[in-house]
């Protein structure tokens, strides 16, 4: 890393330099796995970025221990994210894409959780360790990065009516609509 620790900490989630640096590292790393494919044409994400987010989302939402719950894949969270990013400021979308590459990188995997593999090539247990490492990182930027992925995955997943019953929420009441 060529960015000083002080400079590093001063940058926000989408501060640019560190994530751009991370992007370079990501390119140097071993290729990732694209096991999950988009359901339609992507507006903002590349198929690789789609696969990275989808892999993270699969671990962030209820996992294998909850068979009755829909998977991230079933709710098409990657596609939902792509549509959301298309509506955000282009710079915000660009920075989130950079974050995905840093998170995927084998180099940051090694330094954050001791696994020198792209996130998409990690086992579920290794993936959870990487998420935990970012979640509790001393470096603020990594914690911000974790929160960005966590909140987006949870917002997209838990706003689906398909999970209402699972959380004991009967959903909105039926409201009689009078004349406008």
């Amino acid at each position, binding site marked *: 890393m060529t960015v000083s620790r002080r400079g590093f900490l001063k940058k*926000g989630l989408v501060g640019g330099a560190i994530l751009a640096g991370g992007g370079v590292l990501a390119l140097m790393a071993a290729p990732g796995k694209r096991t999950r494919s988009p359901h339609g044409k992507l507006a903002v994400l590349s198929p690789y970025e789609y696969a990275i987010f989808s892999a993270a989302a699969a671990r962030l939402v*209820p996992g294998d221990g909850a068979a009755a719950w829909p998977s991230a894949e079933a709710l098409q969270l990657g596609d939902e994210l792509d549509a959301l990013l298309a509506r955000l400021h282009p710079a915000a979308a660009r920075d989130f894409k950079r974050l995905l590459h840093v998170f995927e990188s084998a180099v940051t995997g090694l330094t954050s959780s001791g696994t020198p593999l792209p996130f998409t090539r990690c086992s579920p247990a290794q993936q959870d360790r990487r998420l935990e490492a970012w979640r509790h990182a001393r470096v603020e930027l990594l914690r911000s990065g974790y*929160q960005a992925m966590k*909140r987006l995955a949870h*917002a997209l997943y838990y706003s689906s009516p398909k999970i209402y019953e699972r959380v*004991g929420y009967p959903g909105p009441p039926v409201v009689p609509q009078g004349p*406008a």
Partner: protein
Amino acid sequence: MSILSPGRIRDARLEPNLAVECDYAIVGSGAGGSVAAAVLADAGARVMLVEEGGHFTRRDFNMQEAWAYDALYQDHGNRATEDLSIVILQGRTVGGGTTVNWTSSFRTPDRTLALWAARHGLSGLDAAALAPHFAAVEARLSIREGDPDDVNANNRKLLEGARKLGWNPELIRRSVKGCARLGYCGMGCPLDAKQTAALTYIPDALAAGAHLFTNARAKLIETDRGRAKGVVCDVTVANSPRPKRFVVYARQGVLLAGGAINTPALLLRSKIVNASQALGQRTFLHPTVPLVSFYDEPIEAFYGAPQSVACHHFADRGDRVGYFLETAPVHPMLSAVAFSGFGDAHRRTMERLAHAQATIALLIDGHHDDPGGRVRADPDDRIRIDYPLSPALREAAVDAIKNMARLQLAAGAREVVTLHEDPLVIRSEADLAQVDGAAFGPNRHTLFSAHQMGGAAMGSDRATSVVDARGRHHELENLWVVDGSIFPTSLGVNPQLSIYAHARLFATEIARRH
């Protein structure tokens, strides 16, 4: 009384004109912009409002979080501080924050007004000057004394816990008429029971000849020889790579009411920066600390009036930062974002949602030496919000977590679960000691803000403020700020009613010149 024919709401995307002209251009259609428009239009001025959001009505309000946050909130529900440590809920639609707020209505506390006079050099603005404007707005928005029937199970826990501990809870006055207590104020009221700006002052303004252009984002204020000349807007058109330019020229003046993040950013983008360097500084958020408790019986905090009880027992903590307590509704998406952890651990918390009670502590920032946050405007139009958590705020947050836990236990909670990244489980007073030892800081504990204030503060001293005690810009004599940006500190209460009343006072004085 206006002699103009009635105006209407027009979609700027469909507007054939590239420029329009009026007496007063108003940026933003929320609490401040709407009432200012109504007052000026009623005085006979030709008024035009620009609103960056869209126009949605009760038929659109489907009570689904997936639609509501995307359609009605800033950044499609994704606004946050730069480091993501504080999620910022802020409206972006016709009616602004009034379309999505939780209806809680308070006058500006006397102690806050006294603080502004004593410490921020603000003279000529006191409770007496504001009183008639509060009264008028309260009448227009049907704000009446708090109603015990509004109290749902979520708020009842706050009421009972605070009563048991002798903390003097109060019923909240709400801006509603014929409320069915559905619980979806934050997603737009499908019954038109909530008396939003879109149902009150905007129709008043339109009836008096004002026009409102939607989907028009104010990009720059045009100035000419020390006067504001007009507002240049970006209008995003489908299938077009670049936004369309739409200009509202103002013969008399420009009023800014885009809210306490967008207004300072608009002034910064327009390079209307005065010598004080105060612009964009001292942004206050009432940083809000939620605490969730679980009960044996169902609480169903997703239903019922979202806020009906408040507790100001800890608002004045002497030389320490104070806070006040209210509740938050627990719809699945908002709760999932707030609850820490992921995967199955997070799922297990979500599965108890119907039994969850959410108390929130709103930190009263800016009343001590804490400097608040800062708004920056990037050259590419992106807005950045920095908000460092000062040691004084952290102390208040930790104290608030402990007192909220005491309250919830007093109300009969089976257990309290904190929103630290490593959640603490509190079942008795003895467990509270853990709270002092838990890491608290950016992205180590859930924080959000539904109240944005400051950034273009009122003051008599040009060296430390942006506008005067009537909202007029210190350098541009025909430019006013009429939204929450003007507050020199946070209010210590929910700000909607204060924004309306200040804007009404300012607009009434502007109208006298007309």
